[in-house]
């Protein structure tokens, strides 16, 4: 058998029966297009979130968050006021491998006024090394220092969008602003940073020394969060269990009681992101697979019609020397080419839709490798699985009967 020539002739047959070929491929086109689209969107979201996470949680970083999970398996949680700076100091002295840490407190919805301009935002408190720990560059002026932290000074570092709103193009460093009723001096302006994983604009950040925030503005002795930088990321697990042990002991939490804190490491975040994008990465692609199932059924029906229509052709091929397996091969090749074609078209349509969707949703345009498996391999599998029965029927034709 001359496979190359049979392949060429299969192409010609498909080209001459454009309508049949189109309808055979249509289901595959739709199925693969929706599969590619949903999958790339899922991956896009995942990547977008990962990029945002990276901005505030590097691979060496841990977050200790003062929240209490209500119940095992329950997703909702309560903020608690049990986490203190003393806890943090205890952690650093008892758990080896921590190179830096920064306590964090927030005060939401504060009005900031400069002259006749005002803007409402969240005030964040951190230590003097907060700039390094949170990886925040300062483009104008500087971050507050240790003595300002110790003295609970009324100094503030503002995000570039705050600076623009309050001061326009003039330099805000040294200027006076009011947060609530308290006057502050602007020490510096952050460099632009974009959006965090929760969708908060970091360029609207306002940082004050944590002491100032806790004592002067909030009058509290607890913090909501701390960021801990681990010296060696390979020892992340030990540090996480060390922190957990220290906090449990200090908060008198016994073995099976729920913790009043969560230690968030990059792996935890990655798992959370996967969980959140599961609907795109698993559920919607599964629905697309149902579309492919329908495509398979269409292929079976059209193939049977085609085999019946081409009875005398099959008889002739057998008369001039085609063996049963040659006929089988021919029909499987035809259905494979059709399905592959459908897969490629579907993949292109899916990626084009993703591109358009990505522009609207600000998703990065990245093509995951799985798309090529979906677009090139899956259609052939569906095509052959659907086509094998009609192709077998064709292969079994008795030439005498077929030629009658």
């Amino acid at each position, binding site marked *: *058998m*001359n496979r190359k*020539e*049979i392949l060429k*002739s299969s192409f*010609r047959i498909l080209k*001459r029966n454009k309508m049949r070929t189109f309808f055979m491929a249509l289901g595959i086109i739709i199925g693969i297009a929706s599969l590619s689209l949903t999958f790339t969107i899922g991956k896009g979201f995942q990547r977008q979130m990962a990029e945002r996470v990276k901005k505030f949680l590097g691979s060496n970083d841990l977050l200790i968050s003062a929240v209490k999970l209500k119940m095992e398996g329950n997703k909702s949680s309560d903020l608690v006021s049990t986490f203190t700076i003393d806890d943090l100091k205890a952690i650093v002295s008892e758990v080896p491998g921590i190179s830096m840490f920064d306590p964090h407190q927030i005060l939401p919805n504060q009005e900031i006024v400069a002259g006749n301009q005002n803007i409402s935002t969240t005030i964040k408190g951190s230590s003097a090394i907060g700039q390094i720990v949170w990886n925040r560059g300062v483009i104008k002026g500087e971050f507050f220092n240790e003595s300002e932290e110790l003295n609970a000074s009324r100094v503030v570092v503002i995000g570039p969008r705050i600076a623009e709103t309050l001061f326009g193009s003039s330099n805000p460093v040294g200027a006076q602003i009011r947060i609530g009723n308290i006057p502050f001096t602007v020490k510096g302006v952050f460099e632009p940073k974009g959006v965090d994983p929760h969708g908060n604009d970091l360029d609207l950040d306002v940082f004050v020394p944590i002491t100032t925030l806790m004592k002067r503005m909030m009058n509290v002795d607890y913090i909501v969060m701390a960021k801990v930088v681990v010296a060696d990321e390979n020892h992340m697990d030990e540090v996480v269990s060390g922190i957990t042990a220290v906090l449990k002991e200090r908060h008198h939490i016994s073995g099976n009681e729920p913790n009043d804190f969560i230690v968030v490491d990059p792996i935890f975040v990655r798992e959370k992101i996967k969980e959140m994008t599961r609907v795109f990465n698993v559920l919607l692609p599964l629905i697309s697979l149902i579309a492919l199932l329908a495509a398979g059924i269409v292929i079976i029906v059209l193939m049977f019609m085609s085999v019946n229509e081409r009875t*005398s*052709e099959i*008889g*002739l*091929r*057998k*008369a*001039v*020397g*085609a*063996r*049963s*397996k*040659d006929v089988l091969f021919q029909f499987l090749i035809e259905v494979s080419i059709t399905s592959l074609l459908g897969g490629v078209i579907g993949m292109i349509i899916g990626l084009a839709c993703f591109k358009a969707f990505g522009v609207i949703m600000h998703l990065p345009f990245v093509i995951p490798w799985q798309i090529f498996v979906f677009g090139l391999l899956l259609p052939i599998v569906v095509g052959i699985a659907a086509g094998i029965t009609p192709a077998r029927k064709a292969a079994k034709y008795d*030439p*005498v009967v077929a*030629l009658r």
Partner: protein
Amino acid sequence: MIQLKNVSKTYSNNGQKPVYAVKNANLVIKKGEFVAIIGPSGSGKSSMMNILGMLDRPSTGEYFFENREVNTLSEDELASIRNKKIGFVFQKFHLLPKTTALENVELPLLYSDRNNIRSLAMAALSQVNLTDRATHRANELSGGQQQRVAIARALVNEPDIIFADEPTGNLDYESGQEIIRIFQALNNAGKTIVLITHDQTVASFAKRTIQIHDGVVSENSYEKLVSHE
């Protein structure tokens, strides 16, 4: 080349008494012969051709093709013999529609191991004087031209024997004559031709005539038939 020994072909319908399409046929066809198998419709001549052409197997009896007993050969071996040793020409031409003359002629080569199938197909088309119609689709050709394409297809793999089943049956007189002349020329060039027909005039062009009636084969030369009338 071909020998039938007591070959019968029966068909049975739902346990009814079997019907003989071919009954105890004994026949020898030698290389280079031009044989006509003649009989009225329903006489079993198509069943005979299907057996001779290895499209079908005898129910009983032995069929030797080049000294090989056909009943002992597998389906694939039969397909291979049909491909390499046999050419078929049918009453209804059986060309692939929407397909060019050249591609139709190439068809048997798809199942052979030969190369340069395009030039071989062109050579076969030139044997039937149709090179100028090579790129025409089958449905754009006249009946006579279609049958010439079918003959080119039968010739393309250089078979030893050609079976033609009512090759002029769907053609006008002129085209029919042309087809017969091609068969004569092929026979003169050494090809064995077996022509199945119901038409005495067509049969008269063969060098030897075999009659078939109700599945029973009897042999008379054309001269004998004429002298009987």
